């Protein structure tokens, strides 16, 4: 797939935060591309910067004064970083939607959910209130919420976590966007509900011909839904590739260790933790950021940073490592 | 922010627009500001409050009255009675009523029956708080509709004083009282120049001119009598032109400050309210006359007058307010002499001075208390002053709980009443007929009693003078000064008489009162 087909193209994107007078990069020179009609998962543990990366795309980082975003974000031929806020608001209302993690807090507690969805519909210029309402009910139906008429009047706290997440999805679909960013959408849900929501996300993405950025720390969820995967560690992307490649033949030691550290039902005996902890942002290792925890680290790993992994095409697997594992059997042994 | 202030301005502006100024009227409206917060009672025999008495004085007449602006008992003139006579023994008094006096609001003509009814009502403790003033009455009768006859049990110093138009002696309509079944205050009907129209609770009383007033139709058409307890508010309301006449403050500072207000006249008038330092003779150590004398010597009168203000007080050496029938200036006075005071204390057995626990009211006289404290301290008398709430103070001093009681009072301007209430042993605290004899004084008893029944006015005066001298010599009380009434009025208001004193403690509004 040629790069021009990319819906979203991110180049050298950095997000810095001001902390006690110092600029600290939480996202460090990320390069990423998202093809049309595909799901890209950004995987990483908490604090890896994956949510920051995603929120900087839609400029929803919260207190704008505290963050400095640099680099380039090309979305469908437009450069998003330079856009004035009013234009950016248009993009958010029409082209890119976000599904947030904590659905209880992400929905306005004092407004019925139907109204909250209608509000999102109103942005795309639906002719009348009645049409907006019909569309809202259709969306509720699309996300498989039973008896939408009645549910539209419910308040968020009256719904279960799964139902709320469905509402979030309906809201994200309302503007018929081309890109959906789903930020840990199943994290606080039970496994059975997680399975339902993942399946719903997969279906609506396909049916509406959208692209999706799926952010998660759960490798199982990623495996279930992603076409491509970017693994983040300590603010950097350390490995990119197709889901199949990354999960079966991880090349970066972090990806490999992460897979081995995940408790699995089918392989109960193989649990192997990653030693140490994620470094803090104010004391990042200068060279390879994973080196202090890496079992295969050599001298060079602590002397200079490896070249960044760059996502070029979905068939291309890259790892930000001096000594990436080369062969399939190495990882799965 | 800009938006907020715009909205604010708009709302304020809109508010003002909706409020068109009241149309100017040709009517003469007198707006009075008084210091109380609400009316007590419009029933003249049910309220001793100044704020009520001032008002009732405009609404009612009595058999006789003081000419407006004075309270000289020798100038008492006819009011509802045209003339009067009395029997030789002074026990039977006959009054001829003025014909064609009408009660307000069509309650008919005044008859002797109304007068009899009013006076009987005023002497009945169930319907009157002034009943004791009428204790000497034996009978009140109406031999004919135009004649009232009063028979006394014994001689009194001056019967006319008792029936002078004020408080309980004001004449009400019998019919009105019977109609209201004991709640007369709701429908006060009198014969005075102004008649009651309405009372807006805690706000104002509205009076209107009594067109049929027997001295002529009043020039003022309406009176708003407004209750404004806050001193500052009355001052400001006057400055804003919302009042024509208002109760001032008995303070030099206030008088001086207000003088600069354009269009104001400060009225200072009688009766003075005498401020007395009552010393309780029944308690140690004040039971020793030397201690009382020491206190008297320790007091610097000059300093006191200066402190409170020469414009609003008058120095008074006697124990009766200035100008009362029977008053005399010719009394012994203790010179300000600290050394003498100390000497006396030493003789009394207090070489190192002594301490007195004194209760004071938090509402009045707070600053002068401190001056008194300072003066006494120089003579070695430590006054341990405890200021308490006014109502509490009133009840405490009526239980002999304070050896020194600083008290301010005015009474009907005849020496007898003041002397009896404050210095006759019958009125001493703890007695069945106790009034305000806080000092348990008995030095003047004989002279007060003698004066009461004396027929010869000259001799009567002598008894009263003697009583004052004896009381002062015994140091039952130390007089400080007379506190005058202080009011402010617009210079456009013409009261129609010279205001020297007023029995109601407030200016009389008569038929002649008008705006210039």
């Amino acid at each position, binding site marked *: 797939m040629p790069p021009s087909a990319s819906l979203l193209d991110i180049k050298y994107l950095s997000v810095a935060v001001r902390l006690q007078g110092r600029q600290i990069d939480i996202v460090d020179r990320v390069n990423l591309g998202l093809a049309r009609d595909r799901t890209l998962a950004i995987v990483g543990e908490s604090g890896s910067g994956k949510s920051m990366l995603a929120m900087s795309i839609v400029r929803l980082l919260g207190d704008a004064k505290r963050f400095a975003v640099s680099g380039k974000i090309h979305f469908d031929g437009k450069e998003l970083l330079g856009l004035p806020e009013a234009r950016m608001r248009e993009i958010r209302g029409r082209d890119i939607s976000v599904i947030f993690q904590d659905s209880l807090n992400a929905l306005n507690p*004092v407004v019925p959910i139907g109204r909250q969805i209608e509000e999102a519909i109103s942005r795309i210029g639906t002719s009348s209130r009645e049409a907006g309402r019909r569309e809202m009910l259709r969306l509720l139906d699309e996300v498989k919420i039973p008896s939408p008429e009645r549910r539209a009047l419910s308040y968020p706290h009256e719904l279960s976590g799964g139902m709320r997440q469905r509402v979030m999805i309906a*809201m994200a679909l309302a503007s018929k966007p081309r890109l959906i960013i789903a930020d840990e959408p199943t994290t606080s849900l039970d496994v059975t509900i997680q399975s339902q929501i993942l399946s719903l996300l997969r279906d609506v993405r396909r049916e509406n011909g959208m692209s999706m950025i799926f952010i998660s720390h759960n490798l199982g969820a990623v495996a279930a839904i992603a076409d491509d995967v970017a693994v983040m560690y300590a603010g950097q992307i350390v490995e990119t590739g197709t889901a199949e490649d990354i999960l079966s033949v991880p090349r970066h030691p972090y990806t490999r260790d992460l897979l081995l550290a995940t408790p699995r039902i089918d392989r109960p005996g193989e649990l192997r933790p990653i030693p140490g902890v994620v470094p803090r942002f104010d004391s990042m290792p200068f060279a390879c950021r994973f080196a202090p925890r890496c079992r295969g680290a050599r001298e060079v790993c602590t002397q200079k940073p490896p070249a960044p992994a760059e996502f070029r095409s979905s068939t291309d697997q890259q790892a930000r490592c001096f000594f990436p594992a080369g062969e399939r059997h190495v990882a799965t042994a | 922010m800009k938006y*907020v202030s715009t909205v604010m301005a708009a709302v304020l502006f809109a508010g003002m627009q909706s409020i068109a100024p009241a149309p100017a009227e040709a009517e003469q409206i007198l707006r009075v500001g008084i210091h109380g917060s609400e009316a007590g009672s419009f029933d003249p025999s049910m309220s001793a409050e100044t704020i009520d008495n001032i008002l009732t004085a405009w609404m009612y007449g009595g058999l006789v009255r003081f000419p407006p602006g004075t309270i000289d008992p020798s100038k008492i003139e006819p009011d509802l009675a045209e003339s009067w006579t009395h029997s030789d023994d002074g026990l039977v008094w006959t009054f001829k009523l003025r014909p064609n006096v009408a009660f307000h609001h069509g309650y008919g003509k005044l008859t002797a029956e109304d007068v009899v009814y009013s006076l009987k009502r005023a002497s009945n403790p169930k319907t009157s*708080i002034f009943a004791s003033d009428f204790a000497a009455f034996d009978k009140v009768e109406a031999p004919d509709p135009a004649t009232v006859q009063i028979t006394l049990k014994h001689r009194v110093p001056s019967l006319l004083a008792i029936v002078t138009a004020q408080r309980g002696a004001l004449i009400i309509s019998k019919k009105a009282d019977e109609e209201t079944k004991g*709640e007369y205050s709701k429908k006060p009907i009198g014969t005075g120049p102004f008649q009651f129209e309405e009372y807006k609770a805690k*706000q104002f009383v509205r009076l209107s001119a009594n067109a049929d007033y027997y001295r002529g139709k009043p020039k003022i058409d309406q009176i708003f009598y407004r209750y404004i307890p806050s001193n500052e508010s009355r001052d400001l*309301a006057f400055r804003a032109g919302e009042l024509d006449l208002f109760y001032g403050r008995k303070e030099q500072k206030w008088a001086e400050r207000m003088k600069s207000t354009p269009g104001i006249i400060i009225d200072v008038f009688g009766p003075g309210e005498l401020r007395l330092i009552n010393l309780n003779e029944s308690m140690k150590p004040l039971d020793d006359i030397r201690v009382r004398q020491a206190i008297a010597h320790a007091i610097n009168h000059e300093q006191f007058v200066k402190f409170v203000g020469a414009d609003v007080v008058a120095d008074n050496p006697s124990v009766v307010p200035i100008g009362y029938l029977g008053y005399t200036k010719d009394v012994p006075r203790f010179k300000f002499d600290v050394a003498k005071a100390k000497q006396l204390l030493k003789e009394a057995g207090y070489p190192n001075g002594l301490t007195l626990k004194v209760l004071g009211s938090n509402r009045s006289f707070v600053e002068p208390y401190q001056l008194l404290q300072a003066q006494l301290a120089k003579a070695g008398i430590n006054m341990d002053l405890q200021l308490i709430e006014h109502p509490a103070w009133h009840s405490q001093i009526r239980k002999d709980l304070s050896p020194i009681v600083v008290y301010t009072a005015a009474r009907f301007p005849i020496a007898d009443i003041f002397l009896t209430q404050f210095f006759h042993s019958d009125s001493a605290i703890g007695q069945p007929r106790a009034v305000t004899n806080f000092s348990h004084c008995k030095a003047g008893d004989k002279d007060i009693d003698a004066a009461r029944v004396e027929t010869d006015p000259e001799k009567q005066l002598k008894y009263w003078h003697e009583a004052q001298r004896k009381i002062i010599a015994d140091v039952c009380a130390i007089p400080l000064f007379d506190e005058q009434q202080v009011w402010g009025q617009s210079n456009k208001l013409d009261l129609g008489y010279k205001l020297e004193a007023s029995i109601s403690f407030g200016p009389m509004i008569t038929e002649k009162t008008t705006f210039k």
Partner: protein
Amino acid sequence: MIRFILGRLLSTIPTVFFAASAVFFCARILPGDPAIAILGDAASQEAINTLREKLGLDQPLMTQYGHFLTGVLRGDLGNSMVSGHSVVAEVADVFPYTLELTIFAIGFGVLFGVPLGIVAALRSDRLPDYVARVISLVGLSCPAFFIGICFILAFSIYWPIFPVIGSGDVVGQAGHLKALIPPGITLGITFLAFVARSARTSVMEVLPEQFVRTARMKGIDETKVILGHVLRNALLPIITVSGLYFGILLGNAVITEVIFTRPGLGKLIIGALNSRDYVLLQGLTIIYCVIVVVVGLATDLISACVDPRLKLT
């Protein structure tokens, strides 16, 4: 709902009972005698005793208490010792004045305080915020009597727009509103400061909430985000503090009523205290209790309307 309201009202009966009993005994422990207050200084002991008898003050304390309680149970708050009118009538006379005053003050405070607080929160640590903070500081730190006098000096003496005194009843209905504005603003300005401050705080608290981000995600106007999402959620604490503030407002109303010479509950209670009008005091306590309860109830009902998460239990 009705059950809830009834339950709440029922549950206040003990509170009212204890408050009234406390006032009953406290008033009688305080030195001071209503008879003296009524009759004046010159009254003889005889007259005082007669009146005490008439007022029932000569009876044993517990007997008086019994009378009081049975009266309250019958819904009879008794007659004022001073004026002789029934307490209910006395209150009914002046209550509308206090009510209109407090409503005006609350309206004024909310109308200007909420926008002020919002603007301050949105422009925090910038000029509008400082202006709002200064207004709040002035409103909260200046006692009502000071503000009142300043108001009179400015708008009645210097620019004679408003009357100094009274409820405006003297000059008729138009004057009524005019007379309400100065005391209303005086009373309301502290409330405004209070509301502005709590609005600022609660808006600041709501702003970083995730649903605000969700609203922005939808791409709707910032104004709609603020009014439709932030404010609705920020309203709840504002309503709560306003309800709590109501008690303070009633207290401040006393001072305001005195300065502006308005009739009202505040003036009534001061008068009752000074003249030791026990019956009126007791009655007023009960009425104040009921007012506070009703306001609390109203606050809860409004809160429940604003926030569906609150259940009325």
